[in-house]
C-alpha cells in the first residue's frame, strides 16, 4: 500500500501582534502519502500558506509554532537545528512560491542559481552540474536549455521563470514538493501548461506534491486528495471525488456553489457565501464558519469534532455528527428489537 510520507499532528502557529496573538493555524492534522498530489484549498487568511511554511520551518518571528508534531518518513522535523534543516530543505523537501518574478536572484544567471542547489546537495562538479541543469530545464519544457542557462531571470517570461523554479525544486529529486499558488500569477494558457507539468510529475516520479491554491479548477484537474481550510482549521478532507461530488461541510458546498456554472443559462445568479471570514486575532470558540453558515444552530458555538464519513473522508461539522448520532440511534433501536 501507499506509504505515509509526511504527517502533521495538531499544528498550531501564531503571530504576535500588538493586539495579541494572531492564531493563523489553530490545530491542523493531516498526512501526505508518497507520490500523491494533495490540494490545500482555502481563502486568504485560512492558514494554508502558513501551514506549508511551518512544514519547511520557515516561520520567522513574530510568528512561531506553538504546538504540533511534524514527521517526514518517520523522523521528527520539530526541533531540528538550522544546520540539519539546511541539509533537508531543497533536498528532501522543496518549495515553489507564487511569485516567479521575485523568487529568483536577478543578478545571477539561471545556470548559476540552478547549479548552486545541485552542487550543494548532490556534490556534483561544475561541468556535471551544468549538464544536469540543462537536462532539468529540458524536462520542464524549456527549449534550447544550454543557451538559456547563460541568461538572467529578466530574459525569461513569467511562465518560463516558474518552470525554472520548478526545475530547481526538482533538481534534488525531493520526496515532497510544496507548491504555494504556483500558477496564480500566470495567464490562463500558461497556467494550463504548468499544471500539465505537475500532472507529468505525478505520473513519472515518486515526488509527492502539496499544491496550495484557492482555485478549485486547479484542484479538480491535478490533485488526488484535498484539504479544505478555513479560519486556521481543516473543515473537510477527502479524495477529489469526495470533495466535488459528496461535499458535506457547508463551507465546501458554498465554495462550489459560488462558482459560475458552465453551459446553458450562464446568466443564472451566483450563490455567494455571505459575510466575511473570521478575525483570527480573536477567533470564535466554536466553528469558524458559524457566522456565514446557512445551517448554523446552537451547537455550533462549540467546536465540532472531526467526523469520518467514509474511509479518508473527514469533516468538522456538527451536522455530520448529528447525522451519525441519528444513524447510530436508529441501528441501536433496530438491535434492541
Amino acid at each position, binding site marked *: 500500500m501507499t506509504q505515509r510520507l509526511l504527517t502533521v499532528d495538531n499544528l498550531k502557529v501564531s503571530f504576535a501582534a500588538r493586539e495579541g496573538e494572531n492564531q493563523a493555524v489553530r490545530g491542523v492534522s493531516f498526512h501526505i502519502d508518497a507520490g500523491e498530489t494533495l490540494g490545500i484549498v482555502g481563502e486568504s487568511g485560512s492558514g494554508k500558506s502558513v501551514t506549508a511554511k511551518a512544514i519547511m520551518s520557515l516561520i520567522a518571528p513574530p510568528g512561531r509554532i506553538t504546538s504540533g508534531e511534524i514527521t517526514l518518513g518517520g523522523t521528527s522535523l520539530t526541533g531540528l537545528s538550522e544546520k540539519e534543516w539546511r541539509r533537508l530543505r531543497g533536498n528532501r523537501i522543496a518549495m515553489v512560491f507564487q511569485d516567479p518574478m521575485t523568487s529568483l536572484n536577478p543578478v545571477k544567471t539561471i545556470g548559476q542559481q540552478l547549479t548552486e542547489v545541485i552542487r550543494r546537495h548532490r556534490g556534483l562538479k561544475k561541468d556535471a552540474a551544468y549538464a544536469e541543469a540543462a537536462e532539468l530545464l529540458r524536462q520542464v519544457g524549456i527549449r534550447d536549455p544550454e543557451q538559456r542557462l547563460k541568461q538572467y531571470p529578466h530574459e525569461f517570461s513569467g511562465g518560463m521563470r516558474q518552470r525554472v523554479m520548478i526545475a530547481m525544486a526538482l533538481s534534488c529529486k525531493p520526496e515532497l514538493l510544496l507548491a504555494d499558488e504556483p500558477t496564480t500569477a500566470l*495567464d490562463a494558457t500558461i497556467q494550463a501548461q504548468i*499544471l500539465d507539468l505537475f500532472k507529468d510529475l505525478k505520473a513519472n516520479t515518486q515526488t509527492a506534491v502539496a499544491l496550495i491554491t484557492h482555485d478549485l479548477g486547479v484542484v479538480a484537474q491535478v490533485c488526488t486528495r484535498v484539504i479544505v481550510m478555513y479560519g486556521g482549521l481543516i473543515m473537510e478532507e477527502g479524495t477529489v471525488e469526495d470533495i*466535488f461530488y459528496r461535499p458535506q461541510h457547508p463551507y465546501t458546498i458554498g465554495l462550489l456553489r459560488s*462558482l459560475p456554472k458552465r453551459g446553458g443559462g*450562464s446568466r443564472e445568479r451566483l450563490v*455567494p*457565501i455571505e459575510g*466575511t*471570514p473570521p478575525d483570527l486575532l480573536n477567533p470564535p470558540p466554536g466553528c469558524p464558519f458559524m457566522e456565514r453558515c446557512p445551517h448554523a444552530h446552537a451547537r455550533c458555538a462549540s467546536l465540532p469534532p472531526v467526523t469520518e464519513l467514509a474511509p479518508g473522508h473527514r469533516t468538522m461539522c456538527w451536522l455530520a455528527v448529528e447525522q451519525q448520532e441519528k444513524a447510530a440511534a436508529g441501528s441501536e433501536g433496530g438491535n434492541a428489537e
Partner: protein
Amino acid sequence: MSDTNNVLVEVENLKKHFSKGKDMRGRDTSLLKAVDGVSFQIRKGETFGLVGESGSGKSTVGRCLLRLYDYTDGEVRFAGQPLGGLGEKQLKPFRRRIQSIFQDPYSSLNPSLNVLELISEPMKIHGLHRGSERKEAVLELLTKVGLKPEHLYRYPHEFSGGQRQRISIARALSVRPEFVVCDEPISALDVSIQAQVVNMLEDLQAEFGLTYLFIAHDLSMVRHISDRIGVMYGGRLVEVAESDELYDNPLHPYTKALLSSILETDPRKAGERIALDGFSVSRGEGEAAPLREVSPGHYVAYDFTE
C-alpha cells in the same frame, strides 16, 4: 454593425503606441503597439466583456476609454460625442458619466481618507448633493453596496479586500455614471467574495441602468457577467460575439486555445487543451485580418481560406 441609436460607446480603430526608447533627436526608436487598431461598440445597458492574456492590451483599451491615456490614433465616441480631442475642461462632464473600478482595492483608495470622504470626494468635484444632503447620499450608497452606516468614519485599512472593493464601487457610483469601466474588479478577491461582488454589480446595473466594460482574465466569470465578449490578442481584437455563442462556437484559433485552458471544476471532465504554439497574429507584424461578420453578431478576424 447595426443598431446605432442604441450604442453608448463606440470605439473606432483605436491605437495606443508607447515609446520604448528615443534617439538623440527625440524621435522614437522603437514602439510598443499596446493597442493596434481596435473597433467595437458597447450598447446601452449591456455588459461588454474584454478578455485576453496579460499584455494583450485589454487594460490599455479600458484606460483609453477613460481618457487616462491620450491615444495615438482612432476615436472613442461616448453617446455620439468624440472624446479624443476634448480638453480637460470640456471633458469634465464626461468624467462624471464615465467611471471606473480597478483591480487592486488596496492601492486604489486613498489611505488617509475615511469612507465618508472617499465616497463624497467625487460628488464634491462634480458639485452634486450640496450640504447635508451629501452625507445622506453617501449613507444611501453605503447600504446599496452592503456596508453599514457605522463604517462611515472608518479608514480603508480597517476593511477587508471585498469590503474595499465595495467602497470603490460606491465611490464610482456616487456621481450617477452611465458607463463604468471595471478593470479586473474581482481578480484580487477570494472565491467566496467574488460571487458577492459580481451579484452586486448585476443588481446595481439593473437598478441604475448602467453599462459596463468588464475587463478580466477569469474566463468563466466573464462568461457569467457579460452579454457580449471581445477577445484580445497582441493589441488586436480577434473575435467578438454574444457570450454563449463565443464559448459554444469559438472560431478564431486563439479563442479556441484560450477557452480550452479553462479548468473544469469537475475532476471527471479533463478538458482537451489546445497548445498555443506557432501562432499567426503576432504584435505589429504586417496587416492583421480585419474583423468580419461570419454570422449575425459574431465577428472574427481570421482568414479561413487557408
